[in-house]
């Protein structure tokens, strides 16, 4: 007697195992893809910030001064234009993308990071240590920059490790600068994935960078799990020596 051939196909158990494996694979892939995307966004933002620094210094070489930051509600140009007078908003403004020829920009002409948030830019407005008499604005004014000379050091922008008290962290707090005082000519930064404006999702250290004063924070990224709270800004600090060195090499200074 001929045995009946078994039916082709999978049992329910087999199907369940296969589906479970596929689910695991897809889940892992999705997590990996999310991580890769986040890393890519951060790297792209860092690349744009470095490109912005290059564009700012290039602008300074050509125009013999740094541009002022752009202000909100405009078109991504420095404010005021021309650099004759003090910057409208030296610490709380945006990268003047149109003025320096930076791309990519948003529909209003402001330079943006990989999340579409506007890049920020702050430039020192006061100086110290000048040999002889000096006049401000220094970095954003062609005549004053040349007349004041390279002995002038910036005297306002400070970048700290955090706004937190020393009790929260002994190695990263509001008393610890990430760069020595009187060394920072300008900074360019992205407010990170969580955006630029006050609201849910920003930590105190994030918000410190958009409050319009000369004190900023730059540190490692962290989430709510950290005692220091959320921080995801990405910042490039440009020492005054780098700025002077480029302009000396270009014959603009001293």
């Amino acid at each position, binding site marked *: 007697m001929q045995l009946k051939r078994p039916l082709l196909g999978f049992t329910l158990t*087999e199907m369940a*195992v*296969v589906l479970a*494996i*596929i689910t695991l*694979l897809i889940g892992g892939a999705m997590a990996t893809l999310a991580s890769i995307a986040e890393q890519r966004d951060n790297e792209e933002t860092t690349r744009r910030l470095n490109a912005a620094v290059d564009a700012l210094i290039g602008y300074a070489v050509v125009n013999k001064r740094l541009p002022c930051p752009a202000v909100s509600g405009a078109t991504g140009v420095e404010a005021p234009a021309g650099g*004759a007078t003090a910057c409208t908003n030296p610490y709380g403004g945006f990268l003047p993308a149109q003025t320096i020829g930076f791309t990519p920009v948003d529909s209003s002409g402001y330079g943006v990071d990989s999340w579409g948030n506007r890049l920020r830019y702050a430039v020192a407005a006061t100086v110290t*240590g000048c*040999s*002889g*008499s000096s*006049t401000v604005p220094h970095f954003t*004014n*062609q*005549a*004053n920059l*040349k*007349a*004041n*000379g*390279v*002995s002038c*050091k910036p005297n306002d922008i400070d970048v700290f490790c955090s706004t937190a008290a020393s009790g929260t962290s*002994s*190695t990263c707090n509001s*008393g*610890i*600068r*990430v*760069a*020595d005082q009187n*060394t*920072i000519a300008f900074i360019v930064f992205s407010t990170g994935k969580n955006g630029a404006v006050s609201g849910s999702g920003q930590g105190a250290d994030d918000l410190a960078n958009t409050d319009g004063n000369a004190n900023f924070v*730059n540190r490692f990224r962290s989430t709510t799990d950290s005692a220091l709270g959320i921080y995801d800004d990405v*910042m490039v*600090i440009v*020492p*005054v*020596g*780098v700025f*002077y*060195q480029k302009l*000396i*090499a*270009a*014959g603009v*200074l*001293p």
Partner: protein
Amino acid sequence: MVMVFIIGVTWYGLGALGKAAMQGYERDRVTAAALKQAKEALLAYLVTTAAMTTDTVDSRQANPGRLPCPESLSHPGTVNEGKAADLLPGYTCGAVGRLPWKSLGVDQIRDGYGEPLWYAVPLGTWAKTTTATALTINPGLANQMTYDGTASAVVAVIIAPGAGLNTTGEPGTPSGTCSGFAKVNQLISTRNAVPLIAANFLECGDATGANYTTIGTSPWSNDRTISITAAEVMDAIAGAVADRMQRQVAPALEEWRSTQSLANWGASFLPYASTFTQPASNDLCGNSGVVEGTIPVVSAVGSTCTAWGGGNVSGLLGSLLFLGCAQSGSNYQCFFFNTGFGALTTRVTATVSNVSGAFRAPITSASVTNDSGGTNSNFSLTFSPVTGSATLSVDLSFGLLGFLSLVTVTIPDLGNAAMLSDSRMTWFTGNDWSRYAYYTIAPGAKAGAASACSGSGDPDCLTVSGLPVANGNTDDKRFVLTLMGRAVGSQAQPSASVTDYLESHAQGTTSFTSSVVTSAYNDRQATCPFKVTFTDSTTSVLCN
């Protein structure tokens, strides 16, 4: 089932392989970028400190080009992390440590393995050991550190330590650049314990300072380094040094011309130049009639640039036997016998040469002494701008001197003028930058000039064409001090020929050309008169 399993394994395997390959490449790229960024930040720090005219931290203004100390090995994890050791009180600088990123004004720089960068300097030459260490940094200072087997090749090395290594299990003995060094095990739990130990991060010559290498020899070392040479330091700080020459040295020189020389010698003049020779060996003593060369800033201590001569003692009342005068140490002494029996009054005269070839202060009556109780009167020290010498005359009156008493009259050498210890000048002279600054005085600014350099267009002035309008006239200069820069084009340094140093001026002329520094031109002028103009059209006269 089998197919799903195979696809899964293959996908994972390819992903892992790709990830590993990318990590290695990516780490090398990050390390290279980190080293480049660190070098740029370090040179930028030198620009900033070279331009300083005051510094309350550790008198960094005194030595343009002085390298910062590494971070102290005890400071990682403390509030002083990232700070150069020499910017903290009571320091003792170590030759090797982590890069002082915070003092450089940048965020902490890490290599592709997440390790903070290290940094090594030569102590006692380019960096201070303690705050009391005396440095002399100028374009003639040599490289000090061995790099890639070449002695005296670099002045600083920045090191990316890479991942920790354990070479104790490797077969054979360390080879290549690691030949002669011991195997290491850096994979220890105490690796990051402070104070840090360099050998737990760096290998072979990088750890000992014996021979820094660009790339360590695998598998014995995985260090990657970038070096900084003396030439790179000098190129970086030249602009800042020139700025200080214009803002500090030039006004001090002008003050000498307009005020100090007049107060000291009764005539306004700039001293003659020392005839140009190889900078490192120039005697810095002006030669009469020479209007261009090296600025004559030699100190009176140990120098015979200005010397007394032609001494004489004659009797005004009584009689004496003049024996002669001779130099004794830093004094000029004249000797005579009293050959009379009553009171004696004598007149001592002598001439000090080359006053117009140095920055010297006159002596006073009180500084002329004798060993026999004589009193001074009618003292004069008269400078002749034409001869450049000054003649001393002083009368000495003695009471009753014994017959044939030997009298010694002592005239001290001229001392330094105040401007040589002026804080605007000390960095310039103390580091011998003066040897690398070509000094030219206008025909109307030298001692005994028939007519003074009186303003724009006067042929008794020098001309510096190419100066911006904001800096005033171009043809009214009383002197030009040119920072000569390193050799460009076909120039060869060191040299006794000025053409191997200068591009902006032809010897024997009164004109200079100011230009943007290029690969063929690197002169930088400081001059007077010179002004700067601010944006509101107000001006600041740096020197009048």
